[in-house]
């Protein structure tokens, strides 16, 4: 085992719960979130030799998890689309589309309701910043974009949530 493998392994064991939480906030399914974390471990070890800088290992692992979670969502969306095309019919009254079924199968709570109002990458930036407490610079690395893009994404997401809170208040 090389030193990089060793560092990556240690970081994986230190971070796996955090990675799970982030993956779960996306996929809302216990087994799928576990699969994503395990796949993160496999991919991280496989590519550890290419790591030039081992000081931001935690952000690097999170980046793998985020990418896998986004892939998972894309795949699911394709599957849903295909299912709809094959069925060529709308669900009967009272029935749900697969996407709706999935979302409703997850516990519909305050947090999930909140995150549902955001687009994928907005959701991620909120989770990483306010729940996993990453710095903006690290989030930019994780999301593979520049810091300013991350910042505007964060402000946009906060704006949306503010709007939605206001709507909620108005409903009450």
């Amino acid at each position, binding site marked *: 085992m090389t030193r990089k493998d060793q560092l990556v392994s240690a970081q994986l064991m230190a971070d796996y719960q955090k990675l799970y939480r982030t993956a779960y906030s996306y996929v809302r399914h*216990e087994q799928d979130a576990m699969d994503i974390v395990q796949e993160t471990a*496999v991919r991280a070890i*496989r590519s550890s030799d290419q790591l030039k800088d081992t000081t931001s290992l935690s952000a690097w692992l999170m980046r793998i998890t985020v990418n896998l979670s986004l892939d998972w969502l894309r795949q699911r969306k394709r599957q849903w689309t295909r299912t709809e095309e094959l069925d060529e019919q709308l669900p009967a009254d009272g029935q749900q589309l697969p996407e709706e079924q999935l979302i409703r199968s997850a516990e519909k709570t305050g947090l999930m309701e909140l995150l549902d109002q955001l687009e994928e990458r907005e959701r991620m930036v909120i*989770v990483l910043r*306010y729940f996993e407490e990453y710095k903006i610079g690290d989030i930019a690395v994780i999301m593979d974009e520049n810091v300013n893009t991350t910042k505007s994404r964060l402000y946009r997401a906060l704006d949306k949530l503010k709007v939605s809170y206001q709507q909620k208040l108005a409903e009450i």
Partner: protein
Amino acid sequence: MNHIFSDEIQREYKQITPPPQLEKLVRQAIRKALWEKRRKTLLAVGRYASVAAAAFLITLTTFANLSPQMAYALGEMAVIGPLAKAVTVREYQDQRNHAEAFLITPQLDPQAVDSLPPEGVEALNQAMEAYTAEMMGEYESLLSQWGEDPYVSVSSAYEIVTDSDTMFSIRVDHSLIMASSRNSCRIFHLDKETGKLLSLSDLFPADSNWEPVLRQEVIRQMEERNASEESDLYFPEQLTEITADQNFYWNEQGELVLVFSEYEVAAGVANMPEFVIPQEILTELKK
């Protein structure tokens, strides 16, 4: 930090906890990936070096001597010099329920390094063996201390950090995972001319005041890093002494680098922090 969302929402997020089996599954995934990677590397090395038995060597054995090619494949060579290929490794592997150890001991093959003083080679090999024995001792003691089925994982790795005309330095890293992880290392230096194993204090004249000078420099760098980052990762007050056997190596620019264990002088996120000592300080100390 999180004043945007209500306590309830934050609590809800923190309550997302993975099923208990995930820890074991992640370990398994790591092991599987390491195994596949090792196998791939070994087969590649085997092909390159025409080692017909490379595939056979994949089987792990306790304290079996492995070939230089195997050692080459297992080690991460920062510097590939003539001695790099004279390193063999001995492996120790243990697995029981949730505990596992994968320790390697690099050894210089005395026959392959006949240009070096034999007593120096022997001393280096013994020092590296003693370090592995220390790690094994710690592993065994944790197993007996924490009952029947503790979650413990220890591993080691090595890297040749210097192989110059005058010096051969080899770094052995040690990782212990138990609830959280702890990384440390020991760097061994063999003076090729005298055959002596060198410590940090051997680099300076006997009357040199190297300790306070190096300590102050490291503290200065820690404070500088704290000031340039958002949070104080480094704990200058914890560095009360730089010992004679402080870990060090020479980087590619020929600068002296001091290496500390994880948590020794900084928060865990800094891992094993390193500090490069400016050349002018070194020159002054060597006078």
